[in-house]
């Protein structure tokens, strides 16, 4: 108990100091509310608009979640294909690298025209794409980078390729999948906001932030930003929790391997 308290102390102290400085800066430099609001004002706004923020977070969060799930499923499926057929990997890998290097969100403008702007599909597709590549790269690595000794062992048992897949490759890839999820969870949330940037239904966090900023409602905008941070954090925490329940000692395995 005591040690847990001590572990929590530095972040709390840092946070308090940071917000105190912020609050003080606003007071001392007399920063106007259109420019930067004090944390206390932002908190007021957050408390007053909880239901609105929750509504908006639900919309963006749903987009992020749907994209996250779809991207994960597609990424896992594709990485299975890649590990099975080398030639496919040779063709897809350079594309994946190239696509990964593009600021993918510029595709939103294009996707919005390919689908209806009133639909959430383009946004979800965007998230799907981003997640897909993260999952693909990691899981494919996990499926192929198995210890040669283990493969040799399975062959000494005269195990068929399907048994090697089930008993060696898949379990070996599980921690990689979770690493990918930990990276993609916040990425999915951010992508969901950025996708709102190019138009569409005006009910998500991203569009609320822009419209409040445009209307000089700085504190309200930052209250939504706070909502955005909490949503991102929630996604991140959930992915960590899922990992620790799904793979006992999973984190340890990865860190052990990287050493």
């Amino acid at each position, binding site marked *: 108990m005591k040690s847990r308290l001590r572990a929590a102390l530095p972040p709390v102290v840092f946070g308090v100091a940071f917000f105190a400085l912020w609050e003080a800066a606003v007071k001392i430099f007399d920063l106007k509310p259109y420019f930067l609001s004090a944390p206390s004002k932002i908190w007021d706004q957050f408390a007053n608009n909880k239901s609105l923020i929750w509504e908006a977070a639900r919309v963006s969060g749903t987009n992020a979640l749907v994209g996250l799930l779809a991207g994960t499923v597609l990424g896992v499926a594709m990485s299975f294909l890649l590990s099975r057929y080398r030639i496919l990997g040779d063709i897809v890998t350079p594309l994946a690298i190239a696509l990964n290097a593009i600021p993918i969100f510029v595709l939103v403008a294009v996707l919005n025209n390919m689908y*209806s702007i009133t639909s959430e599909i383009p946004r979800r597709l965007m998230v799907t794409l981003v997640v897909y590549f993260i999952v693909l790269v990691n899981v494919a690595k996990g499926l192929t980078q198995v210890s040669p000794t283990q493969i040799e062992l399975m062959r000494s048992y005269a195990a068929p390729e399907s048994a090697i897949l089930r008993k060696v490759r898949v379990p070996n890839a599980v921690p990689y999948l979770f690493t990918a999820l930990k990276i993609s969870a916040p990425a999915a949330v951010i992508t969901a906001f950025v996708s709102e940037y190019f138009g569409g239904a005006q009910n998500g966090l991203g569009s609320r932030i*822009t419209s409040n*900023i445009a209307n*000089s409602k700085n504190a309200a905008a930052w209250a939504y930003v706070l909502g955005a941070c909490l949503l991102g954090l929630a996604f991140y925490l959930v992915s960590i929790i899922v990992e620790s329940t799904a793979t006992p000692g999973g984190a340890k395995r990865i860190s052990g391997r990287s050493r």
Partner: protein
Amino acid sequence: GDDSDSGDSTADTTAATADTTATSDTTAAAAEECTEPTKVKLQLQWFIQAQFAGYFAAQDQGYYADQCLDVEIVEGGVDIVPQQQLADGAVDFALSWVPKALASREAGADIVNIAQVFQRSGTLQVSFKDKAITSAADFSGKKIGNWGFGNEFEIFAALTKAGLDPAKDVELVQQQFDMAALLAGDIDAAEAMTYNEYAQVLEAKNPDTGELYKPEDLNVVSYEAEGVGMLQDAIWASGAKLASDEAYKATAIKFVAASLKGWAYCRDNAESCRDIVVAKGSKLGASHQLWQMNEVNKLIWPAAGGVGAFDSAAWDRTAALAQETKNLEGKTVLTKAPDAAAYTSDIVTEALALLEADGVDTKGGSYAPVEVTLNEGGN
């Protein structure tokens, strides 16, 4: 390219400066010769286009130089809020729509409207004939496009006036930067400026006929006609500096005068202004820019009280709408009435006097728009 050639015609400088001296004694010292022009930064709301032609014309025609000003015109962006740039001191003057600027003022930005350039609202809601949307009351149950970024208040005002709840009775959709959503039928009616997006529709090909869309294919709801038009492009200045800094005030007068003279030039030379804007690097096509020039002129001219002057009825209506209209979040633009210091007629009055002395027609009573043919893609 914003800071480029600010006028090379120094021929008639002397006359202009002589006039300035007569009206404003603070600049008496600069009377003889313009040795070091005052640097001025103007923040636009958006990218370079004919919507801002007057300022570019003033720059190009040397009107600013005549006033011994060296004006840098700063482009806007999606998230650049011009009045905030002004309040932060990053620029000296900014263009902004009145309701948005008043919201900033309420949030602590000390800015003052010194010239109301656009006398009318140019916002439309455009839809295809088959949707039968001829007034705001017809919005009910429809997908209504808007741009967000604070440009949507007239829609809310019209909805409110028609007895509709923006959060329930319509589906609001943020448009992209193009009109594709309207053409594709994703939205029933799109927000459009007379001078820009409306033209974009008319520049697109109708796949059914193989020809460009015609005005006859469209229904147009004009918010000005609906009685909910809010004041748009105005020149804003720093309130604190106006109050304390005489030199700034003098600069403001000269700047407004030269800018309005630029607008007068564009009224009479629409094609030339189009060329100036295109030369400045606008990426929009030439026929589109000419259309825009013409439509913008219609929003400015004729100006009964003189270009840039304040019509208190329009001002009060704008302020009232801004206090009453609720947006999606149930908030109004303003929570209380703007104070009297939100605009001042002093500057524009002196500027108009300058122009009158210069023989400029500041009312444009005889203004008549030209006919513009749009080409495909605005080219």
